[in-house]
C-alpha cells in the first residue's frame, strides 16, 4: 500500500505527553482567537479604543501573532524535555 513514513522513525515514548500538551495549548490559543473574533462582531467599537497610542484592534493583532510564537517556543521546550526524559 505504501503507507508509513518516507524515512524510518524511531519509537517515540513521549508522543502521548506531547499530544496532551498540544491539545491544552491549542485550546489556550483558540480562547484568545475566538474572543478576538467575537469582540469584533458584537462589540466592534471596542476595537477603536486607543491603548498606548494604538487602536485596540492593532494591539490585539500584534498580541495574537506574538502569542502564537511564544506559545510555540514554550511547547517546543516542554516537548524536547519530554523526548529526552521518555526516550533516553
Amino acid at each position, binding site marked *: 500500500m505504501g503507507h508509513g513514513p518516507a524515512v524510518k522513525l524511531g519509537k517515540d515514548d513521549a508522543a502521548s505527553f506531547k499530544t496532551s500538551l498540544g491539545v491544552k495549548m491549542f485550546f489556550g490559543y483558540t480562547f484568545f482567537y475566538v474572543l478576538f473574533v467575537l469582540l469584533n462582531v458584537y462589540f466592534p467599537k471596542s476595537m477603536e479604543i486607543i491603548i498606548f497610542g494604538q487602536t485596540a484592534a492593532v494591539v490585539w493583532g500584534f498580541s*495574537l501573532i506574538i502569542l502564537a510564537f511564544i506559545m510555540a517556543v514554550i511547547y*517546543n521546550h516542554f516537548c*524536547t524535555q519530554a523526548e529526552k526524559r521518555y526516550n533516553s
Partner: protein
Amino acid sequence: MIYTQSPLAIGLFIFFVLFVLGLSFYLARRTSSAEGYYAAGGNIHWMTNGIAFAGDYLSAASFLGICGMIATSGYDGWMYSIGYLGGWVVALFLVAEPMKRLGKYTFTDALDSKFNSKSIQLMAAISTLLVSIFYLIPQMVGAGVLVQPLMGLPHWVGVCIVGVVVTLIVATAGMASTTYVQFFKGAMLLLVSTTLVVMVLFRGLSTTPENDGKPYHDFTTLYADNALVLEDSSYRVIAGLDSIFGKEGFVKLEKNGRESIWKLHATDNGYTLEETLFATRLNDGTRLYNGSPADDGHFFPVGHIKELIVNGEEVAATGPVGPFSFLSALTESTIVLWGTAYVPDADGITTIYYQKPTPGSQILRPGLRFKVDNSTPMEKFNFISLMLALFCGTAALPHILIRYYTVPSQAAARKSTIVAIAGIGFFYLLTLFMGMGAMTNGVINLLDNNMSAPLLALSFGVFLFAIISSLAFATVLGTVSGLIVASSGAIAHDLLDNFLGLKMNDRTKVRAGKISAVCIGAIAIYLGIVFEGMNVSFLVGWAFAVAASANLPAILMLLFWSKTTARGVAASITVGLFSSLGLILISPDMWLRYGKLPADAPIQFNSPALISIPLAFAALVVISLMTQKDVNVGHATELSNN
C-alpha cells in the same frame, strides 16, 4: 498605464526564472526514486524546511493580496494575516507530529494509515486535487498581475509563463527542487520586505507623498452655486444634476476637450465638487481611463493623507518614524480612501472612484470591508465563517502537509513548524506597514490593488521595484510548484497506485507524477486566465474554506476519536468538500462572476466554513457510529485469522 517597464526589472526577472530552473535541473539527479520525487528523500534539515514552509505559505495571496487589501480597506485586510497565522497554531499543536508519523508521500497516506480503505484513498485524492486547484487559481492570477508592469505583457501571458516554468520545475525534480526554491524565496521575501518597511518608516508620513521624484497628483476642488454655475468658468457642465450621473451624486464636466467626473457635496450656498477617477467600458468593448485610452497615462495612482496629526498637532510631514509612531500618527490622522460607484448610461458603464476621507482610528480597526458595525445576523455569520476558515484551513492544506514528509523525524517536523511561525508571523507584521505605506504614499492602482506592495517599492526607485516584483514572481513559482507536487502525488500515488492498484515501481511512479504535473499545470493556466481581476487573497479565502471543510474534520477525528471508521472519514471528506464547494458556487460573489446581481444569489454569505465544517464533523460522527459493526467484524476476523 501606471507603470513603465525597465530593462533592470526585466533582467532581474529573467535571472530569477533562470536561477530557479537551473536549481531544478541540478537537483533532478536526486529524484530517480519516489521518496526523492515526492518527499525530497525525507532528509531536509528542519531549519531549511521551516523557511521553505514560509516560502510555500507566503504566496501571492499573502504578499500581493493582503498588502493590496490593507492598502484599500485598512485593518480588514490584516484580518487575513491574523487568521492565516492562527492556522499555524492548529498545525503545530495538533497536526505536525502525527502527520509525520502516519504519512509517507501524501496527506491521503496519513488519513488512510489505519484503514487501507479504497473510499478514503479516492475521496482524499479528489479533495487534494480540488483544494490544490482552488489554491492554484489566485497564484496564477497573481502571476498575470505581476507580468503586466514588469514585462509589459498581457495578463494571460504571465499566467502561461508561470504555468510552463513551474511545470518544468516540478517535472524535473519534484519536491527536492520545490523545497530549495521555497527556502530561497522565503528567505529573500523576508529580507526584502523588511528592507521595504524600514525605508517606509525612514521616509515617514507626509500629506504630499513622494513617488521616486514624481509629484503627487494635486486634487482639485471646484465650487458651484445651487444652479450648478461653476466659479471656475473654464469648466463646462455636460451631464448635470438631472442626468443619470447627477442622480448618483456626480456631474460630468469638460475642459479643453477633456471630460472629467466630479463628486457633488451639497453646502449651504451650493455645491463643492471633488475630482474623481473613472474607468468607462463603452458598448463596443472599448475601455477608457479618465476619458482616454490606457496608453495616454491619464489614470494615475492614488493614496494620501488629508490631515496628518502627530501628538494632537497638524503637521505636513513627520520625518523618519519608528513603527509604533507610524501607526499612532495614522490613528490620529485622516486618510483619503476611495469609494466606488457604477453609473450606466447610453454610451456604456462608468466605474467612478471617489474620495472618502476617513479617520485613521476607523481604518486601523475592522469595518471597512467586512460590515461589523450595525451588521445584520447574516453579515456577522459571514465574518465569523471567514475567520473560522482561515483558522482551520492551514492545517488542512495538502501542499503544506506534505512538507512534513521531507524532514527526518517528528521533532524536526515540530521545529520546522516553529521556524515557519516565526518567519510567517514576522512577515504578517510587516504586511500592516507595507499596506498602510501603500495607502499613504500615492501608489495604489484603483483598477487592481494586488500591485500595491510592488508599487510601494517603485516609489523608492526602480531597483527595489525590480527586486520585489521578481521576488513576488518567484513567490508564485514556488507556491505553484508545491501545489503541483501535491496534486501530482494525489493522482500518481493515491489514485493510480493505491486506489486503482496499478503495480507501479519507483520509476513508473515518478513518471506518472511528472505526467500528472503537466496536466495540472495546463488546468492551472486556464483557470488563471478565467479568474483575472479578482483579489488573490479573497480567492485564497475560498481555498481555505474548502480545505478546512474537506480535510480538517477527518484529520482531527482520526487523531482524537477512537471510534472513527474508514466510512466515517470518507463521508466527512465528501460532505465537507461538496457542501463547501456547493455553497461557494451559489454565493453572491460567484453570482457577480456569472454576470448576475449578488442580491439575487440563493444565499447571502460568501464564506461557507461555518456550515460546511460542522456538517463534515457531523457526517463523520454519524457514519462512524453507524459502521462500528464493520470495525468489530473486521477486528474479529483479524483475531480469528491469527
